[in-house]
């Protein structure tokens, strides 16, 4: 029996991972810095047509794309003359497990079955657990979900408790843990003990599964409206939603469509802190995941992360917790759709962004998620209040994460606040150089970094020369 201390298990992580995903990631590495991302996606992932077929077998995808006429009208009332794009929403809640995560799970579970694994494991406190469990039921596999649920007082986030219940509803075994990054340690032990497949959120399978979402948006809009969206907004946490959607948009040939990431502003709250854990009212879609993963994606449960949001982001904005709860209420009351709340992060951003855009343009919010007991503005705000967070109406600009949640007094107060992409790019470059230890960069390295930060080779070189002590060979 292998030794089980934290250090011992972590030392075996690469071996455990290799057996549990069946991917030899070293094949794609060129050196300490460069790896061939497209080769990894092509060789390990599945082609778009195959994925549509795989997803068709389990009822995933082909979700409705709906126009939000009343929210568009609100945005137009707030916008300058001639402005106010039409807002559409992709109703991903109509996937079998109630969120776009069914797409992300579908290919992993299909692949696990094909490779002869008897079960799948995922480390997630989000909708992904239910997605994996639901897909596994359809393919006849067992599921174990490892979840971060409680603080040290045994108090659980209502939203996560609901997500755990949903996993159990699909017959999954759920391991519930207190706060901490050692969830990964438990996860590795489970993989080692069971020999199950690692249905990671971050493999090429997971990301390729989301490509159909971007592809569908473009096909549906071209058919129904005869145009491509000017903007697609994606709620951004670990980056897979945005990465997969953007890749699908590219595969559909929509070259002019801008991809905007949106996260809930949770600045100041530490994600691994026992004290902060229950002082946040969003457990996903927030900056606590979004910024670290954008600035350094290779912090996930696989050696090379296929979710690389910075490669595809044209803009990255934040919204406040109170704004998302407000817009969740608006979606129910004005459009007749009770969804979210975390998935409505991008909707809150879209209502603000639409006001900057022309009236004949289209902005697409690319997901919704199911809602229910625990996972809804009412229980989440009640829980926040019980934990000493002040809830009031006012100007969301005054919101301080962990101290208060401010429900806007009117929709004009909802803003999409730009994060400085240059800073995020510099932070990525800093980590990339630091981790690789390279002091001299050739053409291949600069080209790789340029793709990683979604900037031209020339501008990437300038950024590198101005900010880092590296030699660049021309």
């Amino acid at each position, binding site marked *: 029996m292998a030794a089980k201390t934290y250090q011992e298990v972590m030392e075996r992580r690469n071996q455990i991972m290799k057996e549990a995903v069946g991917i030899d990631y070293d094949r794609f590495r060129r050196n300490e810095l460069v790896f061939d991302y497209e080769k990894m996606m092509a060789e390990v992932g599945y082609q778009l047509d195959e994925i549509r077929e795989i997803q068709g077998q389990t009822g995933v995808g082909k979700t409705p794309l709906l126009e939000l006429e009343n929210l568009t009208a609100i945005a137009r009332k707030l916008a300058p003359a001639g402005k106010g794009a039409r807002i559409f929403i992709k109703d991903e809640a109509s996937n079998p497990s109630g969120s776009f995560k069914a797409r992300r799970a579908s290919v992993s579970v299909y692949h696990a079955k094909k490779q002869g694994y008897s079960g799948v494991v995922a480390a997630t406190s989000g909708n992904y657990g239910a997605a994996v469990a639901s897909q596994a039921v359809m393919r006849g596999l067992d599921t174990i979900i490892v979840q971060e649920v409680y603080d*040290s007082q045994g108090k659980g986030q209502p939203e996560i408790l609901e997500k755990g219940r949903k996993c*159990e509803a699909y017959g999954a075994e759920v391991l519930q843990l*207190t706060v901490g990054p*050692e969830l990964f340690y438990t996860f590795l032990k489970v993989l080692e003990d069971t020999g199950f497949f690692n249905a990671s959120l971050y493999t090429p399978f997971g990301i390729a599964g989301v490509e159909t979402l971007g592809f569908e948006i473009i096909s549906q809009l071209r058919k129904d409206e005869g145009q491509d969206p000017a903007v697609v907004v994606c709620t951004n946490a670990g980056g897979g939603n945005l990465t997969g959607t953007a890749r699908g948009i590219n595969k559909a040939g929509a070259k002019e469509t801008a991809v905007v990431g949106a996260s809930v502003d949770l600045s100041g709250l530490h994600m*691994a802190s026992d004290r902060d854990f229950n002082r946040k009212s969003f457990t996903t879609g927030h900056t606590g995941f979004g910024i670290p993963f954008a600035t350094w994606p290779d912090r996930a449960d696989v050696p090379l992360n296929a979710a690389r949001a910075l490669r595809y982001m044209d803009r990255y904005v934040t919204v406040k917790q109170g704004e998302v709860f407000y817009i969740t*209420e608006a979606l129910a009351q004005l459009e007749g759709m009770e969804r979210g709340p975390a998935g409505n992060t991008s909707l809150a951003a879209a209502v603000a962004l639409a006001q900057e855009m022309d009236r004949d343009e289209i902005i697409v919010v690319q997901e919704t998620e199911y809602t229910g*007991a625990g996972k809804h503005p*009412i*229980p989440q705000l009640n829980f926040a209040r019980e934990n000493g967070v002040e809830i009031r109406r006012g100007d969301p600009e005054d919101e301080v994460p962990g101290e208060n949640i401010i429900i806007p007094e009117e929709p004009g107060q909802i803003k999409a606040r730009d994060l400085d992409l240059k800073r995020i790019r510099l932070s990525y470059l800093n980590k990339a150089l630091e981790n690789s230890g390279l002091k001299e960069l050739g053409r291949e390295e600069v080209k790789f970094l340029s793709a990683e930060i979604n900037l031209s080779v020339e501008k990437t070189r300038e950024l590198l020369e101005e900010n880092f002590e590296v030699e660049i060979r021309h």
Partner: protein
Amino acid sequence: MAEKIPAGSWVQIHDIELAAEERAPQVPEDTGRVPLEKWIKGFLQEAAELDEEVEIETVIGNRYRGRLVDADPSYDHSFGKAVPELLQVGRELKEMLREEGGE
């Protein structure tokens, strides 16, 4: 004497996954002071009292040992009280849609 919970009951067990001093070096100070705890639900293998060390079999057939903490684990999350801060939002927005101009 406390009553024994019958074998086969659906229960929840608790275990210390890592003691405070065994935790990862990078955890924040407040998290590092407390252990990493774990809860699992399953079918009790032999009749036992609360707080006893027991074995369970999970819904997919895995066996785990731990302290019996709940003889009837339930889902207590709900919606709860109405939230006054949200109650007017729909009315206000509908009123705004009815107003002339701005379009």
